[in-house]
């Protein structure tokens, strides 16, 4: 055997030594759970109501949520559909991670906190949300019913929360509209997992057996358009076995758009220009949800006007 080639065998023990060193160092590569406790005092100084807090990489987020608590992670931000509406974001970087969704934001400050880096970022062109339909799903703004037969759904502040367990429906909160069709066909603000299993805050609006589910908002100030997303819990939608769901949007009785959601489309954006209704100080906006076959239609939509 030629000497040069023979010495290649030295790679075997060499790789063993290098891998051992790497294995030892990899153990401490990511911060341990207790290290995250140092973040709260630092965040308290820079956090403003309405800021978006993002953890990069995303897998470290449970540690941060445990350490920081709910104040920094309202569901509207944590299960957002887009980042455009946020004026500021705080990026908590773990092990050098960066959040790709904040690539368009401008960094204005950076601070090291133990093994973490906290960056303050500003959105150069934030979208101004005039009215968020998901966050206003409550009496005073919203009323819910059905068209065939004509029904009304009663608001409840203290229903028993419901969850579907493995393979079941999303969580239904205690505060929800209870409909006569049964508890499963309630209307409530929930969170579903989309086609990438990302959390999406939305209005659970399962179609009714006949006619349409109606969700009416009154006294709504309008922007230039009503935009949002529609989808279903992905484990249901991916099977591709259900009927399409239609979401009609009416402003002051006039149809401004119809979104048709077919299985497999995932968390799908829609936008309807409001034309002559744009900029109104107050209006009535109705969402009508229907399907030719209502079986297993875990329909959920997010909408706002901006």
């Amino acid at each position, binding site marked *: 055997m030629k000497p040069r080639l023979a010495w290649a065998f030295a790679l*075997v023990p060499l790789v063993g030594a290098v891998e051992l060193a790497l294995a030892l160092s990899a153990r401490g590569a990511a911060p341990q759970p207790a290290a995250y406790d140092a973040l709260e005092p630092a965040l308290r100084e820079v956090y403003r109501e309405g800021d978006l807090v993002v953890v990069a990489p995303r897998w470290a987020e*449970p540690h941060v949520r445990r350490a920081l608590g709910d104040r920094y992670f309202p569901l509207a931000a944590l299960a957002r559909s887009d980042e455009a509406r946020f004026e500021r974001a705080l990026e908590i970087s773990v092990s050098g991670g960066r959040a790709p969704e904040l690539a368009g934001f401008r960094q204005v400050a950076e601070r090291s906190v133990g093994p973490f880096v906290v960056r303050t970022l500003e959105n150069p062109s934030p979208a101004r949300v005039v009215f968020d339909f998901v966050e206003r799903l409550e009496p005073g703004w919203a009323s819910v019913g059905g068209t065939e037969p004509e029904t009304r759904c009663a608001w409840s502040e203290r229903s028993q929360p419901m969850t579907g367990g493995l393979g079941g429906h*999303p969580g239904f909160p205690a505060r929800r509209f209870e409909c006569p069709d049964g508890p499963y066909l309630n209307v409530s603000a929930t969170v579903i997992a989309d086609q990438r299993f990302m959390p999406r805050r939305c209005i659970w609006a399962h179609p009714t057996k006949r006619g349409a589910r109606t969700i009416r908002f009154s006294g709504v100030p309008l922007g230039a358009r009503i935009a949002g997303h529609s989808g279903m819990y992905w484990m249901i939608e991916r099977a591709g076995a259900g009927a399409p769901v239609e979401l009609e949007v009416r402003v002051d009785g006039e149809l401004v758009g119809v979104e048709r959601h077919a299985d497999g489309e995932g968390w799908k954006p829609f936008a309807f220009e409001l034309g002559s209704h744009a900029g109104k100080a107050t209006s009535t906006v109705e969402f009508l949800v229907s399907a030719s076959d209502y079986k297993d239609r875990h329909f959920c939509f997010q909408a706002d006007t901006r």
Partner: protein
Amino acid sequence: MSEPADDPQSSRPSLALGPSERLRRLYALVAVALGAAVVALLLLTSDAGYARDEGFYFYAAKRYGEWFVLLVRDRGEALRRAAIDAHFVVNHEHPALAKSLFAVSHLADRRLGLFAEPGTAFRFPAMVLAGVMTAITFHWGVRARGAVTGVVAALSLIFMPRVFFHAHLACFDVPITALFVATFYAYDRTLKSSGWLWPALTGLSFGLALSTKHNSWFLPIAFAAHASLLALMAWRSRQSLRTTLRRPLAALLTMATIGPLVLFATWPWLWFDTWARLKEYASFHVNHEYYNMEFLGENYWKPPFPRGYAPLMTVATVPLVTLVAAAFGTAALGRDALRDLRAREPEVAAEHATLVLWALGVAVSYGPWLSSGTPIFGGTKHWMTAYPFLALFAGAGVERAASVIREELELVGAAGVGRVVAPACVVLALASPVFQSLAAHPWGLSAYTPIVGGAPGAASLGLNRTFWGYTTGSLTDTLNRELPPGGRVYPHDTAGASWEMLQRDGRLRKDLRAVGRADDADVALYHHELHMQGQEYQAWVAYGTVQPVVVSGLDGVPVVWAYKRRRP
């Protein structure tokens, strides 16, 4: 890689380092000691929670155990179809051997109080088979290539982090790997011996493998391919085909006769409606339901599955030093075989039969994942039967590396250092696997090698973080502390029987209740899997909080966490 002492027909000097009889006896003792040490280590580290499938097998083993008791008390009644069907209908999509062993161990523990925890009694037979697997790998390595090969192969195998984890479980994956390599070993011994002992043991081992898991269906394919390759090699070197094929055919004959008999004898479910039930069993696995598995950030749940899954996951979970050593071992032994084949050496088939066998052990184990239609939901355990052979090649690679380095040192006048080369190579080949396996325990399914950045790197790459819901076992202290008397827990992916075993062990308070939905519970657990994230979101909405009370995992990577209901 022949064994001259067993091969009276061999007339040329062997390439193998055939040990003397005295050494062989010593090696046999070392093999037994090594196997026993592995069982002891597994018992000492038996603190992993119970995997989802273990729960199903606990229940099946209890039912089978009840039948064994009936068999002792009232044989006539036990052998009636009604009794057999009633007991063995449970989990009849898998053969009965492993579950029967779990049952016997459980019954023995109940009578004799052998184990500190009842769950360990169920797990013990699989641990013993892990010891057997290690011992056979050691013994085969020693016989084929010498002590360095045997030691490195055996310890590289058991200290693959995923193998080390699975070796703790009352499941079938390590048992089938043990019986897979045992059947290969018996077949190899058949080739190198005369008489019917080793062919009979090959048939018996095949039967036990058949009665353990369906990976065994690939054994006849491997040996038929091996016989064909030996015939080609013999033809090339102008040797008698009849002589070459006599022993492989003897082994295949016993496999065809003894194997099915053992399967039938050890699986009472087949004693009635045999053909229909065999068809049902085969159909279940040929047309297996697809489950979810994350790979590089994507969730795969139906074909086509990525063909890169098996190779990339092997690289990401088997220590790199083992893979590199195996590559060197394969290259070195393959080069020797090709050289002899080109030279038409007369004994080339006998000389390299073991090398070809090891290569086929790898090939038939990975082969199904060349198809994009083969499910990937079980992760690396699907092809675990390849690992003994990978480890044997790694052992041969380290042996050859030590030998070559020693020679090179002598050439440069550093012969004095030569004495420590082999021990140094063995230590460097094993230190990283041993460290990785022990450091990852009991988070074995979250373990990834440094080449992908360990657990944090794998999480960033989007490789599956855990499955089977066994990590409830890592939160028992929190649950015992946080919950009020009679507290209710949604254990997510942990099977009911696995939860109950934690309570029977005394690891979990007996007053705590597992419930099927988060809304019915005081605490909801979440075992992270990409496609399971909806479970976490259910807890957010039902409990009105996104703040876990505890987050636990491996090397700073969250694997399991829990939410506690807010009281109004």
